[in-house]
């Protein structure tokens, strides 16, 4: 079905590989949403699929599909922009294609094992073959090693193409940041009996991905997209990019401390985590201002016509500017101080933040990149938003915001009743979970999840048809 997106207008091999990654990414995105709906239903009706497809399984596939579709879309985006930025053909396109098929096959096997085998006995073999049981990086060890090999091939492709070609600021940041992003995965690949040590290194992967290297990646993509979509001036965009790198890494690297408040690590992390992570929203404000400023400027002054070359793509980039600031910045800052976090840690507050941040900071811009891919695939000069594009962006954004608000309310109730009033524990947990306000919030989360899913159906339809329509309109 996704083969419908034709790629015969693409001028180079990198772009064709990019499109291959985008197609799988959108399928995994669908899987993520379906699993989320199952898990959300289980919160409201706990007997739903009990003992057959338990919450732990649905939730594991939900977050793994999320991480993997985003990595796919990220790799796809890099392949897509590679030749355009460097002015060189992809160095080892054949190997890159092979790596794509190996990775996709491996992911398919991992997901099938998650779904049908689910768990194993308490032996090393389970960790090697079934799942590692560590949130977000559950992939079994054999797949870990496979992922490392495939990512090395991808990185070699990017690196050698970069060496041969133009060294733009955007590509320089991209190449350096990707190395850190890929290298960090290694920190999550060992087993230890010491749960504090386990969590310490686990956060190296999770935090230094989503609050440092992924954010810089988004900054880089946004810079490229602004140049492409609205023809923003490269010097200005690249200056902003370096400012963003400075602020994102300056706050994000030591901001890691906000995960080291309560896992057995020393008290000095309170201060380090608190102040560095409190500054994490600052670069997000900067990115927000930057994108909106460029957007407004290119809307067309003095009656000139707007120069936006990709309407839906640009709309998603602007949504990214809002979403990143709101979801990662504001919702993160809500509970980043230890004085607050001692009560909110491990409640639905985190879940609310997670939903809006992953959507706002990452899903949005990656969807924007998919629109860029479709535009290139059909060779359209100007792609305007269709009815489907508008329905998709409105419903998905509204749905995720709705889920976030519902989960925030649930979290607030949980913090006050379970944590502050009753001090955590088994009975405290269920007392809070069963209060009407919490139950209602979970019901609203399910409804808003359905709204998001309907929006996704529009998005899928749009990605499949918009290129053809735009091409027909141009002819």
């Amino acid at each position, binding site marked *: 079905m996704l083969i419908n997106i034709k790629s015969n207008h693409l001028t180079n091999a990198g772009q064709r590989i990019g499109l291959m990654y985008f197609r799988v990414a959108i399928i995994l995105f669908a899987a993520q949403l379906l699993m989320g709906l199952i898990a959300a239903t289980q919160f409201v009706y706990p007997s739903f699929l009990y003992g057959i497809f338990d919450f732990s399984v649905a939730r594991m596939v939900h977050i793994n599909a999320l991480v993997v579709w985003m990595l796919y879309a990220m790799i796809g985006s890099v392949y897509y922009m590679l030749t355009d930025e460097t002015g060189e053909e992809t160095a080892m396109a054949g190997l890159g294609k092979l790596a794509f098929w190996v990775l996709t096959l491996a992911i398919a096997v991992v997901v099938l094992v998650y779904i049908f085998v689910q768990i194993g006995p308490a032996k090393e073999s389970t960790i090697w073959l079934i799942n590692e049981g560590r949130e977000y990086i559950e992939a079994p060890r054999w797949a870990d090693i496979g992922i490392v090999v495939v990512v090395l091939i991808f990185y070699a492709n990017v690196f050698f193409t970069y060496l041969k070609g133009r060294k733009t600021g955007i590509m320089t940041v991209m190449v350096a940041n990707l190395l850190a992003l890929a290298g960090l995965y290694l920190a999550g690949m060992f087993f230890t009996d010491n749960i504090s040590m386990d969590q310490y290194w686990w956060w190296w992967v999770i935090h230094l991905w989503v609050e440092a290297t992924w954010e810089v990646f988004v900054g880089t993509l946004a810079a490229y997209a602004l140049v492409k979509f609205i023809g923003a001036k490269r010097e200005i965009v690249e200056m902003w990019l370096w400012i963003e790198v400075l602020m994102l890494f300056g706050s994000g690297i030591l901001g890691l401390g906000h995960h080291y408040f309560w896992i057995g690590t020393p*008290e000095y992390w309170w*201060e380090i985590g608190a102040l560095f992570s409190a500054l994490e929203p600052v670069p997000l404000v900067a990115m927000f201002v930057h994108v909106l400023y460029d957007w407004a400027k290119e809307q067309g002054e003095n009656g000139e016509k707007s120069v936006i070359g990709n309407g839906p793509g640009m709309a998603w980039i602007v949504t990214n500017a809002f979403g990143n600031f709101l979801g990662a910045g504001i919702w993160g800052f809500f509970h980043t101080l230890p004085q607050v976090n001692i009560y909110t840690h491990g409640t639905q507050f985190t879940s609310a933040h997670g939903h809006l941040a992953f959507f706002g900071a990452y899903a949005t811009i990656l969807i924007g990149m998919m629109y860029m891919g479709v535009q290139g695939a059909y060779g359209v000069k100007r792609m305007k938003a269709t009815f489907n594009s508008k329905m998709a962006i409105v419903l998905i954004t509204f749905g995720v915001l709705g889920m976030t608000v519902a989960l925030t309310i649930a979290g607030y109730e949980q913090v006050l009743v379970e944590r502050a009033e009753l001090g955590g524990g088994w009975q405290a947990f269920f007392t809070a979970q069963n209060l009407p306000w919490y139950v209602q919030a979970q019901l609203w989360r399910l409804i808003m999840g359905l709204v998001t899913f309907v929006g996704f159906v529009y998005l899928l339809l749009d990605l499949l048809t918009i290129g053809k329509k735009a091409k027909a309109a141009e002819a």
Partner: protein
Amino acid sequence: MFFDKFTDVVPSFFGTLNQGPLTLTIFLHTIIVLPMFWIYFSEKKKLGK
């Protein structure tokens, strides 16, 4: 009292700095930001030429 006694389990370099109102984190921020002044003035000199 403005400066607290050391309260953590094990004293260490960072633990010792962490004994007052945000002393540790302000120290770290300062040593990160200070060299940027040097970078600023060296760039200014370069631009002036």
